[in-house]
C-alpha cells in the first residue's frame, strides 16, 4: 500500500445532478431509477436512457458491488486502480479501488463504497475490497 497521498480532482456540479453530490457529502451513493420502466441507470440523467420518461427519481444504493474490470495505472505519480464496479442494484459505474494493495484486486472482488475528499469539491464514491465477506 502506498503511503503517498493521492488527490482527486473535484467534480463540476450541474443543477441536473446536484442531489447526487449533496448525498455524497452525507456519505450516501444515489442511483437514478425510472418510475415508468422501473430500471436503474448510471451516470444519472433526468430522462431515463431506456424509456426516455422524465419520471426518474433518486434512490439510495446499498453501496456494495463487484469489480467488473480494473487496471492499475503505473504511469502516475501514485499508482492507482481504475475500475468499473457493478452495484448490487445492477448498474455499472466508473470508480477507483482504494485503501488496498493495488496489486491485490481482481475481477468479481466484492467491494464497498468509501467516499474520498476532492480538491475543493464534494467527495467522490470510490470502493474498497470487502475481505472475508
Amino acid at each position, binding site marked *: 500500500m502506498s503511503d503517498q497521498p493521492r488527490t482527486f480532482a473535484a*467534480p463540476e456540479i450541474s443543477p441536473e445532478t446536484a442531489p447526487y*453530490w449533496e448525498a455524497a457529502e452525507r456519505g450516501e451513493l444515489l442511483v437514478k431509477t425510472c418510475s415508468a420502466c422501473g430500471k436503474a441507470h*448510471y*451516470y444519472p440523467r433526468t430522462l431515463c436512457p431506456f424509456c426516455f420518461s422524465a419520471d426518474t427519481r433518486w434512490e439510495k444504493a446499498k453501496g456494495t458491488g463487484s469489480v467488473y*474490470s480494473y*487496471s492499475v495505472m*503505473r504511469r502516475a505519480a501514485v499508482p492507482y486502480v*481504475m475500475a468499473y464496479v457493478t452495484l448490487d442494484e445492477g448498474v455499472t459505474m466508473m470508480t*477507483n479501488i482504494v485503501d488496498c494493495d493495488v496489486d491485490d484486486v481482481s475481477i468479481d472482488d466484492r467491494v464497498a463504497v468509501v467516499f474520498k475528499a476532492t480538491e475543493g469539491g464534494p467527495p467522490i464514491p470510490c470502493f474498497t475490497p470487502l475481505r472475508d465477506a
Partner: protein
Amino acid sequence: MGSISPAYIAGVYEHPTRKATGQSLAQLHAEVARGALDDAGLTKDDVDGYFCAGDAPGFGPVSMADYMNLRLRHVDSTETGGSAPLVHVAHAAAAIAAGKCTVALITLAGRPRAENVATGTVPRIVGMPGPEVPFEFPFAPTIVNAYAMVARRHMHEFGTTSEQLAWIKVAASHHARHNPHAMLRDVVSVEDVVNSPMIADPLHRLDCCVITDGGGALLVVSPDVAKSLKRPPVKVIGMGESTKGQLGGNVDLTYSAAALTGPVAFGQAKVKPSDIKYVSIYDSFTITVLVQLEDLGFCEKGRGGRFVADGNLISGSGKLPFNTDGGGLCNNHPANRGGMTKVIEAVRQLRGEAHPAVQVPNCDLALVNGTGGSLGTRHGSATLILERE
C-alpha cells in the same frame, strides 16, 4: 439495403513528417490537401465539398476553407474522433450521390508531439465537457487505463493472454520495417512486447500506438470525375457508422460499435469477411484490433487471441494481412487519430502501390475499420469496404 450511386477514392496522401515542430496546424492540413490533389491529378479549384473533424483549427470547416480559399457547395464537420475520416468518406459518398458535390476533400492533421501532449497517460477533457465528466474525470481515467479495462475483461471472459495481444504489435512491426517513414521500424518479438514497461495493466508500452505529428488527406469523387482521372479507381461499396457507450450503466466492454457497423457495411457491399483480402484495423492499442476483428466477424467473439497469434496478421505468411504500413502501432497516428492512415494504406493496397514486401497479391477487396474515443468508455466506429475496379 438500397443501392446507391458509387463514389470513388481518387486521391490519397500521408504527410511524411512525424514531428512537425516547424509547421502550423493549418499548414499541415493544407499540405496534405495539396498532396492528395496532386495524387489524384486534380486542383484546388476542383474541390466543391470539404470535410474535417475536431483536429482542424478554428471554427469547424470554416477556418480551413478560408485558409485554403475553397469555393464550396457542401461542408461537413462530423466529429467521431479517430473514426471521423471514415465517416467523412461515407458522408462524402452520400453527398455525391445526392448531387451535393463532385470532389470532396477530407483532411486530418495534428502536432501532439510538437505540442508535447501527454496523450494517453494523463486525464484530459477534449472540447466542451460531456455530461459524464463529473462522474468520471475525478477518478483519473486516461486513454490507456480505459482500454486496459477492456483488455482485462477480455482476458477474464475469454482467456486472452498478453502474448496473444503482443502478436498484433509483432505483425505491425514486421510491416513497418519496410516503411521508410514509419516512426518505429525495428521488428519486435512477443517477448519484447510483454517485457516492455507496464503502463496500465495489462497494457505494456509496446501494446500502445505511437504519438506522431502529421496527417493525411483523401479525395472522394463522383463516377464521372473518377473516369476522367488516371489513377486506379477505388470504389466505396460498403459503409457503416455508429457509436457505443456505457448503455445506461449496462457496461459491456467485450464488444465495440464495429459489431453494429460491420454488418451494415458487409450488407451494403454484399460481401462477407472471408472475401476480404486486406484489412486496415484501428490500432490505438493491441486490444483495439482484437476486439474489432471479432466484432467484424473475422473470427468468433472470444477467439481473437488465437486468431491473431503466430503471425496470422503478417502480410505474406498470415491469413489476414493487416495495417501493412505499420499502422498506428509502428508507423503513424497523426493527431492521435488513426482513421485517416487506415484508409490511405487500404487504397495503396487496392492500387497495388503498397511496399512490394507487404503488397497483398490481387488485392481487389479491402475493409477499413476505425474507432474514435475510447472502447473503455464511449466511442464512434465506422466501417468501409473498398473495391478495386
